[in-house]
């Protein structure tokens, strides 16, 4: 049986050009992320973790190489196709400021489903269920400013997975959280990975967070220097 891959990177490179200076952020990245994987990108600051996640999510374009997400060549998609890919296939969780400040927790979760054109009643049920699942019962009608950092990240996770994407990309999702809250959030991600079968790629500096992963990919100076499975 051929292994199904959610993400395939072939010879991916990224060079940032700022004025006359060129920064080689990624060099010849080759990577395959199978379905339902729970992979962690680690490596020192500036090693290219965020760059790689952004390229996979189509937020930025590679300088060279091919990136395939769920069978689609991300590096070749146009703007609106990329938007559609993100809308239907990819969920993002950033380090902070993930939420739309004027919308309540439940509206934030419903937002993506609204963009997808889901009917209001269905949306509301799903949003409530997922907020329950991430442990935010009773906080549905709070705005982001009225939630703690950990609670905000939970809303972001809920939003990222509620429409059952193929892939969730989380760039240092715990960086702004204390270790106890970080651990809770990672437990939640692992739970979502198992229960919903969603593929996760996340990055971190944190040893504790790395320990949750089933695969640890280490970057250094824009190259993959280590890739170990730990099941």
């Amino acid at each position: 049986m051929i292994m199904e891959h959610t993400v395939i990177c072939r010879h991916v490179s990224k060079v940032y050009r700022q004025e006359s200076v060129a920064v080689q952020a990624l060099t010849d990245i080759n990577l395959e992320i199978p379905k339902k994987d729970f992979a962690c990108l680690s490596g020192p600051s500036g090693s290219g973790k965020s760059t790689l996640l952004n390229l996979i999510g189509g937020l930025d374009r590679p300088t060279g190489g091919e990136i395939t997400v769920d069978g689609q060549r991300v590096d070749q998609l146009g703007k609106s196709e990329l938007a559609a890919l993100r809308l239907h296939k990819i969920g993002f969780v950033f380090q902070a400021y993930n939420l739309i400040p004027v919308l309540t927790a439940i509206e934030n979760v419903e937002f993506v489903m609204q963009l997808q054109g889901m009917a209001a009643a269905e949306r509301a049920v799903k949003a409530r269920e997922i907020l329950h699942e991430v442990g935010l019962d009773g906080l549905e009608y709070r705005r982001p400013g009225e939630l703690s950092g950990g609670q905000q990240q939970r809303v972001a996770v809920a939003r990222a997975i509620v429409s059952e994407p193929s892939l969730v990309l989380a760039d240092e999702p715990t960086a702004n959280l204390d270790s106890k809250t970080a651990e809770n959030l990672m437990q939640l991600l692992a739970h979502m990975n198992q229960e919903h079968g969603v593929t996760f790629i996340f990055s971190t500096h944190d040893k504790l967070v790395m320990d949750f992963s089933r695969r640890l990919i280490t970057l250094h100076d824009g190259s993959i220097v280590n890739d170990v499975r730990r099941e």
Partner: protein
Amino acid sequence: MRSEWRAPLLLTLAWRNLWRHTRRTLMILFAFALGVWSMIVIAAITRGSMEQQLDKSILNLTGHIQIHLAAFRDDPVIEHRFLPPPALSAALAGADVMTWVPRVRVPAVIASERESAGVTLVGIEPERERGLSFIPGAVTEGRYLEAPDDPGMLLGRKLAERLETGLGRRVVLMSQDVNNRVADRGFRVVGVFDTQPRQMEEAYVFIGRATAQQMLKLDDNITEVALMTTDRDHLEELLARLLVAVPALDVQPWTVLEPLLVLTRKITDVVLIIWYAIVFAAMSFGLINTLLMAVFERTREFGLFQSLGMRPAHILGQVLVESLILLALALAAGNLLAAATVYALRDGIDLTSVAEGMELVGVAPIIYPAWSAGDLAAANLLVFVLGLAASLYPAWRAARHVPVEAITRV
């Protein structure tokens, strides 16, 4: 492409975003409402004053429609007289005609013991001129004419001064009769009139219609019919009817008789458009600035929208909806304020204290603001459509690709 969700989503977001900076939003709203208010109120006052002048000019012996022999307009002399055909009075009996009068209008020379002057002699039916011309209300000394065969004469104040004559004195009027002979007759000045513009006081003398016909051997001939209608801006139907009724006569509306009045009106339109443009330019400057500020502050949010898969067109739409709500609120407030102001001014703006100066340029001492559906629509449409157009640039800025570091930077 399903669309049922979009309006509520865009609306909720836009509405809440609008009130993120309550004071800023209120300020721009206030400025916009004030702009709309000034557009409408200034338009109403200008339009009201212009229409009043127009009506006043129409009372200066013009009327809404005049009927002559074709040659009379170029050469207003006694040769170009006509006998009003029965079909004419029948056509003028319609409900759209308020009142109409026959007149005799010919050139003449008036002489006192000391001076003489060229004038236009107008023979009128005193009672029927009411509501049709200024003269019944203009006699300030002596009396108005009492009947078509009144033997007296009305003389303008300025002419009386020039002829060094006055109320109760005798003057001689000379003209040409239908046989090309000199017709002259002495008249007693029974009334002196004052009017604006004061050249009118020198240009015309008024006598009874029958008296004039007798003096000039006109029998029942006249040179002019003038009439007032119920609506001076919609004369087409009546003109068409008169054309059929009296094809041999020259039937002309005031717009042809007084092209300057039409020009005045056009100039008013242009002036108002320029006024609108100036006010709007100032407003759009504020609008674009406010929106740009709001867009720049929210760069990260627009990036977030993009990362969530919102298409650029939707992001553009979202900013436009915000602007739309702002414009709608401002228009509502501006229109309400303007309506209240015009209502408060319904008894007129009294300029009598400065009237002396104003009368020189022909402005009435009391101005009644006048709504015009066209002015209202123009102001509202302009603000709305151009307001949205002005919002396109900030909206486009919002929809542009947000560099990824703007989203991820903490």
